[in-house]
């Protein structure tokens, strides 16, 4: 099967998965105890008639599947309704926050790739060296440490004690300013550490596996310089599994941002999600959960396609 047909097939398979994701998103949110009206009328003396009227206003009195279909009709047009707690369109709210999270996510991913891959290669090539041992220790610590704790630790050291990084996000200027990028570095490192630790180990082990294979000896016997042997033969073959896992790490980076944004009071979608959950703001929660779900699905799709592209043996 050609690569094009494989990609097409894989994309088509994604459609039912996306539909499933919308059902789960909607259903799970509806299952949470209490609805937005409870939150609005909390601590207020409101007559049952008013309560009923509010429910009608937000369509909360209809059967669940009708609510779902209404919502889905909006979703396919990128209309997620209005936020209940502050009356603005959900899309607008999210678009305001999304650039920040994207900035943090992409920086985290870059930090991960830049540190994990070279270190993994060196650790594999110089097995048992000081670099190898150090990367092993780093990986164990990196995987074990919870990211909210690491975030607080980094803030304490680099912002509070050493004053290298600002404590709070710059209040104006949007996502694409140098100040924002500097501020984003600490949360990006916080999120990226776990993925770095994992990818570093994976890079090392798959390099070691490839280095021992006969075709590497053959490449040397051909008279290739060592650098070419490692870069062209060993590295490309070991990257196959690393690329796949790296693509899936994108999903973890997105979900990790929820906690880290709270720790760093970062103005991204993660904090918006937590606030909305507190406010039982159904439309916002549903939109954000769906957004994260779709991101995870797309990351997996990307991983599959990359894998097929890199390894000529994979064509289902």
């Amino acid at each position, binding site marked *: 099967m050609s690569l094009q047909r494989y990609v097409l097939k894989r994309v088509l398979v994604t459609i039912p998965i996306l539909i499933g994701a919308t059902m789960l998103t909607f259903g799970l949110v509806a299952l949470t105890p209490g609805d937005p009206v409870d939150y609005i009328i909390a601590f207020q003396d409101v007559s049952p008639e008013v309560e009923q009227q509010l429910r009608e206003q937000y369509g909360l009195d209809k059967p669940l599947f009708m609510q779902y279909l209404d919502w889905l009709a909006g979703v396919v047009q990128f209309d997620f309704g209005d936020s209940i707690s502050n009356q603005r369109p959900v899309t607008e709210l999210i678009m305001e926050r999304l650039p920040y999270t994207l900035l943090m996510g992409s920086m985290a991913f870059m930090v991960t790739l830049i540190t994990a891959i070279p270190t993994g290669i060196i650790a594999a090539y110089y097995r048992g060296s000081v670099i190898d041992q150090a990367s092993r220790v780093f990986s164990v610590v990196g995987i074990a440490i919870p990211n909210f704790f690491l975030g607080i630790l980094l803030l304490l050291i680099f912002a509070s004690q050493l004053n290298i990084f600002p404590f709070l996000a710059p209040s104006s200027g949007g996502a694409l300013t140098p100040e924002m990028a500097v501020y984003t570095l600490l949360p990006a490192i916080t999120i990226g550490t776990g993925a770095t630790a994992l990818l570093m180990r994976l890079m090392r082990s798959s390099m070691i596996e490839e280095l021992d*294979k*006969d*075709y590497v*000896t*053959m*490449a*040397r*016997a*051909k*008279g*290739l*310089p060592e650098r070419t042997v490692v870069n062209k*033969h060993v590295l*490309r*073959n070991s990257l196959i599994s690393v690329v796949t896992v790296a693509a899936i790490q994108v999903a973890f980076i997105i979900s990790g941002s929820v906690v880290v944004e709270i720790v760093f009071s970062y103005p991204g979608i993660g904090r918006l999600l937590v606030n909305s959950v507190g406010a039982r703001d159904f439309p916002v929660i549903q939109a954000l959960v769906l957004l994260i779900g779709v991101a995870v699905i797309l990351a997996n799709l990307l991983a599959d396609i990359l894998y097929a592209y*890199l*390894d*000529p*043996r994979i064509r289902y």
Partner: protein
Amino acid sequence: MSSNEPLIRAENLKKHYQNESDFIDRLLGRQQWVKAVDGISLEIEEGETLGLVGESGCGKSTVGRTLLQLHEPTDGTVYFKGEDITEYSSNELRELRQEMQLIFQNPQSSLNPRLTVNDIIGEALDIHGLEEGQSRDERIKELLELVGLSASHANRYPHEFSGGQLQRIGIARALAVEPDFIVCDEPVSALDVSVQAQILNLLKDLQEEFGITYLFIAHDLSVVEHIADRIAVMYLGEIVEVGTPEELFAPPQHPYTEALLSAVPEPDPGWNPERIILEGTVPSPLDPPSGCKFHTRCPKVIPPADLEFEQEEWRAVRSFATRVESGDLPLGSLREEYDVSDASEFDEAIREEHDIPARLSDPEAEEILSETIQALEQGSFERANDAIGDAFETPCTVHEPELQQVEGTEIACHLYDSRYQDGSVDESAASGQPTAAVSESDD
């Protein structure tokens, strides 16, 4: 290059690997060396095929790779066309790769799965700047057809081929640079028998056409027999016998060669040879036996000078002595197995376990043996070793044999050395030089 200089010549080649030691060993600075290749000398004439056989783990692949300088030798020199290539710089080595190549045992793992056949073969041409553009493609086609594949195979990936086809690609790849010398590292062991013959014939045809010199490594004598002009037999990192197939397959032989030959299956149902079963396993190359490395398993160890032994009896006593000396005797499980309750039952159990008769024919030997067993019964290996002392030592356990001419073949065995014929550990021959002689007890 002078006319009588062989194409490739190795002198006292050694390759020792450091054993993977654990943290405590490294802390204490303890290092163990695996003696994969331990002093090998060989030469291969231009256009000749030297077969190299031996059990797995005897170091034969390491010899091949060390000759090619893919592994740096620990000691010794390799001369290629009269030049010492162990001293070559990495640039000079890269040049040398045009002249010497390697064919692998496993064709699947020896071809990069992500490159097309075109790239796999073409890469060798690119590095050495041999062909470019149109003529590069032409050359690849030509090579594929030379090894019996079609030119249309060039754009496929390795996983689209069968094992035999892959091995053909491996051969085409090796031929791409027009080498003078190819190390074939068990090139047919991973293939079906019917395909084996095809590949062997292909290698032979290529040799005739291009005058290539081969080092053909195999663990199966019947494979090498058909392709090699001369065969070298390896045991534990050393060559024990070298000769033409005819010489090697007929006595006089090294006892190890004899055992290997008896294991070659024959298609003749009426043929009923005495299969020689070697005792025990190959000793660890970490700590090879003293003297002749084969003495722990050799069915023909020379008996000591001052004791009288039947060969079978002596063999049994010798292997018992080896186990006592190495402390490798699980006394506890032995007691359990034979349900030992007193000293005389222990004596019987030991003898039965090692096929030693109840009384040795030589009274002096019997005395030493029973004393040793008594010490063991009391659980002391130290005293057992004292009791054995050097009573059961023979030239085979003390002196390292060297290759010497014996009726055409070269054999490294004390059986053919007149100095040790009578079994005395001291070199009794007046000359002090190894002199060849054929032992009568050999047949």
